[in-house]
């Protein structure tokens, strides 16, 4: 058991350290997130009432896309330099190691999006109550995006041009998250209770944490066989 915890922490530390050694890349998904949201007022209309109405969907769709693009690198570099193979050979259970990798990925790409969200809410003139729920929904939803996305990345990691394929595989699976999260934020903006939607998101997260690592582990073994 101790060695499992040690392996988990070591992998987490390694991934976080690798991420901080490439600080420039850390900012890319965030800038992407910000830019997509900026495009909407330019493309649709700067009208405050309209923006307020579409804000939850806009921010969440931008978050989906940013998560998708940042995910591509989840296993890519490890696959290229062979350390992914070493990970598969390790005596520790692979699903636990997968959780460590996904957690590290979420800490460097998902968490910053959660922290950036109030600013985006402000840009789209969301009411304060809705901004709070937006942050909560992103805090529960983005780990789920990383977990579901990891399955797709694991399936496509061995392919030369997996990027577009990844989008095709993963976006349909993101739909429930999008529905519950945007519905919570819209309800909050309208002054309605939001506990139901957030609980459903949390239930999906619990399901994702339990099942996704096994699917990722199976997919990795297939991709590297």
């Amino acid at each position: 058991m101790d060695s499992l915890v040690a392996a988990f922490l070591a992998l987490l530390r390694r991934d976080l350290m690798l991420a901080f050694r490439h600080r420039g890349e850390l900012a890319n998904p965030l800038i992407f997130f910000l830019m997509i949201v900026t495009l909407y007022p330019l493309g649709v209309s700067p009208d405050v009432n309209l923006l307020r109405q579409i804000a939850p969907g806009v921010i969440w769709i931008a978050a989906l896309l940013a998560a998708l693009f940042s995910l591509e690198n989840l296993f890519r570099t490890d696959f290229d330099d062979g350390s992914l193979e070493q990970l598969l050979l390790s005596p520790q259970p692979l699903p636990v190691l997968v959780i460590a990798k996904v957690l590290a990925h979420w800490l460097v790409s998902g968490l910053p999006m959660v922290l950036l969200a109030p600013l985006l809410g402000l840009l789209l003139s969301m009411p304060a109550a809705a901004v709070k729920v937006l942050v909560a929904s992103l805090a529960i939803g983005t780990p789920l995006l990383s977990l579901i996305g990891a399955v797709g990345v694991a399936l496509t990691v061995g392919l030369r041009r997996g990027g577009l394929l990844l989008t095709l595989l993963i976006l349909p699976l993101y739909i429930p998250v999008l529905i519950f999260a945007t519905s919570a934020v819209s309800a909050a903006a309208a002054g309605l209770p939001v506990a139901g939607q957030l609980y459903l998101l949390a239930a999906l997260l619990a399901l994702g944490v339990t099942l996704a690592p096994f699917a990722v582990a199976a997919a990795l073994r297939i991709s590297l066989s």
Partner: protein
Amino acid sequence: MWTFLHKFASPKHFYRIAGKMIPWLAALTVLFMVAGLYFGLFVAPPDYQQGESYRIMFIHVPSAWMSLFVYVFMAVAAAIHLIWNIKLADVMASSSAVLGASFTFLALATGSLWGKPMWGAWWVWDARLTSELILLFLYLGYIALVSAIDDKRAAGRAGGVLILVGVVNIPIIHYSVEWWNTLHQGPTVTKFDKPSIHLSMLLPLLLMAAAFQFYFFTLVLMRARTEVLERERRSAWVEELLG
């Protein structure tokens, strides 16, 4: 029973047995489809609200049922393939994908044709139409993944994992979309205690559903036979068969 299954699972015997089954299944397809279309188009009375246009239901509803059935069929085949490593199960799953996508497309197209006179628009973001569209995306994702991987063995296993992930997600997607927006008429057949559909309309619907089932199995066996031949092209029995 077990020896039969073992025999059936070996490509050589599958090829032979499937070849014998196909004409029978095809005959059943024709029989049920002719009967279903006759009762559906000539015997069943026009609907008191929707007039004649409801008759598209005899295509729309069976293809929507099939779109779900094929996905579950693929999931079962994928599970058998991943757990017991039976290659034939993977042949079945990969041969079903295109058929499932076609049924889904047919359900969408007929739904859109039906929606025009009923709802006044070709497409509305109704819950069940939307989840059918998402199902089409899931099929297309599977087909894209399997065709992107060159190694057939790895492709089958990766596709299998994707199908199993999808089958866990389908109920979640379905209910989330349902909750998001619904406009569709409620189910009228599954209420077995007191179906809100009249027998004269239910009979052709069930006949057509059976016809679609037989049609699917006819085609999937035909496709699986070709697939088996292609995969086993270096084995002795194929060379003996094709010379």
